């Protein structure tokens, strides 16, 4: 595989990581918690696309829109039921709850599977069959190379779309946070919650908006991952979620350009490891080693602001 093609594939994989990392970084920056369930919201999104597109024969745009809406609702519900009661509690408790939510969501497809198997409704049985090992959605995968003015570029259409969507999302989010009133309120909440409250900012509302945006990004990420030919599965979002969190940490958690940068870096690193046959089995080990090394020497990440511990 030649260098340019690997690089572009890496950018495309990195784009997916960057979108997931943006979701993590938004929530971490504003709600100050690691939303461990983010990867599993992606999983739910992927299942909704699989179900509506393959089993209900919806138009792709409708199924993608449905997935994003469902992810947003799911994110808001999780925030309301599991995380909001713990606002002000020790961070260890919040993290453990998030882990609980994550494994709760991961168990859902298997429960749907057992329900469909034991039910007498044949239509439901048929619709939910194979939920534990769904096939990849071939119609969404475009591996054809991009051809413009008769010249073939070394990048597939879905890869190009991924990169474009990532960059557009990043720019849109930055503009939203810098210019809009809600965005400015988010920055205020992230910098000093009490002061923001005194300035008349409704903190719970802002955090709900943050979760909604993060979960919408999870829906987008689910779409992008499906276009790469990954089939939906209960652990669909677990590993990419953790890798993307690493990317957010490497770029500097809380920083939007940092999350995108980290995502692209990790994606390129992983693709180059994959291209090398000696390194490819160790690609996750290498990615996580990089994470540990960066955390040890620059815990605030590449673009993050160092935090000082105060008494």
């Amino acid at each position, binding site marked *: 595989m030649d260098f340019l093609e690997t690089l572009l594939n890496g950018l495309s994989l990195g784009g997916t990581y960057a979108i997931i990392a943006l979701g993590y970084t938004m929530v971490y920056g504003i709600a100050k918690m690691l939303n461990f369930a983010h990867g599993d919201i992606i999983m739910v999104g992927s299942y909704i696309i699989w179900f509506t597109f393959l089993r209900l024969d919806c138009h792709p745009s409708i199924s993608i829109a449905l997935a994003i809406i469902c992810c947003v609702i799911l994110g808001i519900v999780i925030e309301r039921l599991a995380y909001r009661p713990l606002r002000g509690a020790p961070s260890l408790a919040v*993290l453990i709850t998030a882990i609980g939510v994550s*494994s709760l969501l991961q168990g859902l497809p298997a429960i749907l599977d057992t329900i469909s198997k034991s039910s007498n409704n044949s239509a439901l049985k048929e619709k939910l069959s194979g939920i534990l090992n769904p096939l990849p959605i071939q119609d969404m995968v475009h591996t054809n190379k991009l051809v413009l003015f008769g010249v073939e570029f070394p990048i597939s259409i879905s890869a190009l779309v991924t990169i474009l969507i990532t960059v557009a999302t990043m720019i849109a989010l930055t503009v939203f946070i810098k210019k809009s009133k809600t965005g400015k309120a988010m920055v205020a909440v992230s910098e000093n919650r009490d002061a923001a409250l005194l300035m008349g900012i409704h903190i719970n509302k802002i955090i709900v908006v943050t979760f909604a945006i993060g979960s919408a990004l999870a829906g987008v990420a689910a779409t992008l991952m499906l276009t790469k030919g990954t089939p939906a599965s209960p652990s669909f979002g677990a590993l990419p979620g953790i890798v993307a969190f690493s990317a957010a940490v490497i770029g500097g958690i809380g920083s939007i350009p940092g999350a995108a940068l980290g995502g692209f870096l990790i994606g390129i690193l992983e693709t180059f490891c994959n291209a090398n046959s000696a390194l490819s089995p160790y690609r*996750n080990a290498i990615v996580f080693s990089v994470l540990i090394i960066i955390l040890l020497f620059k815990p605030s990440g590449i673009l993050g602001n160092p935090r000082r511990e105060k008494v």
Partner: protein
Amino acid sequence: MRKTNDLGLNKSFKFKNYLNYTVILAVLAVLMILQFTGAAGTDFNYKIMPIVIPIGVYVILALSLNMVVGFLGELSLGHAGFMCIGAFVGGKIASLLDTGDNANISVMLIALILGGLCAALFGFIVGLPALRLRGDYLAIVTLAFNMIITDVIKEIPFFAKGSNLPTPSLKDEYNYIIIFAIILITLAVIQNFARSKHGRAIMSIRDNEIAARTMGINIVKYKLTVFTISAFFAGIAGVLWSYYQPGINYEMFKYNVSIEILVMVVLGGMGSVNGSILAAALITFINNYGKFSEESFAPYRTVLYALILIIVVIYRNAPGLKGFREKYNMKDLFAKIFKKKTSQEKLEDIADKETKKSEKSDKKEQKLSNKVSKKAAKSAKNAKKEDR
């Protein structure tokens, strides 16, 4: 006056502090009676042992994870990684040293110690990032460590590429006695560690690291010690697991196992030794007993544990539930059952004592002040007399 608390930090002997050893020994005694009298028949080997041995292994795992999560207050999501190292190193060593059909105890001891030491070495290495990182970052690093371990084991030919490394098993029927012995050793080490001055130092790091450092507590030493000891016992549990299983697979040690152990520790109550033992025994029992252990029940189990985890953590930590927590809690429930004093009544008792004390001291003060005023009056009279 000596005061006791939940961890029994007093030095005087109290049976209450040794209750857990007694219960474990009693369970062992019941099992031995069952075996020697043959009361359980073939059920003993085919029904009871497949529950008792996993319970033993998970009790050791939960106890050792409780050191990191409960006493040190850091979240470790890589406990299955240490278990993995112990299982593969110990299992491999045992299968290399073992020549006959029957594995002997000395080989098992060597495997246990070497497996534990290897895991402890990795625990030390994972402890190094813990010196600079805390909270969410450390959780992710330990999780990453778990994934790195399983990924690397999967590629090492020495460990059969992580899939079905054959391991010896103790053929005789007394291996549960060894497991019970190891549980007792683990319990003794961890409980005494927690009750020692080192344990108090570690808990002070958990409560306020900066304050602990100001008091001259060596944070580096204690954090590394906790991670190393915790990993050592996880490694030993791994070796026991490799003896229990006919062959070991890297997929047995994925990070969801770490989370399962974490669920046990959280359910038992973080920092509570007996809680960890009870929760580990209960959950492992449910996982392995009869109908609940069936494959079709597994997803419900996962979801149920997750729900319980969320509810328990919210109940114990939510700032909004403080009043609710004081009104309804397990301690008061037990107190009502055993007709002891509830925490509310205990508080009232203390308040009563305080008021009595203050009344007493008030009286003393009054007496004193009376004396003083009398003295003053006398001296004033004397002074007047002298004037005359």
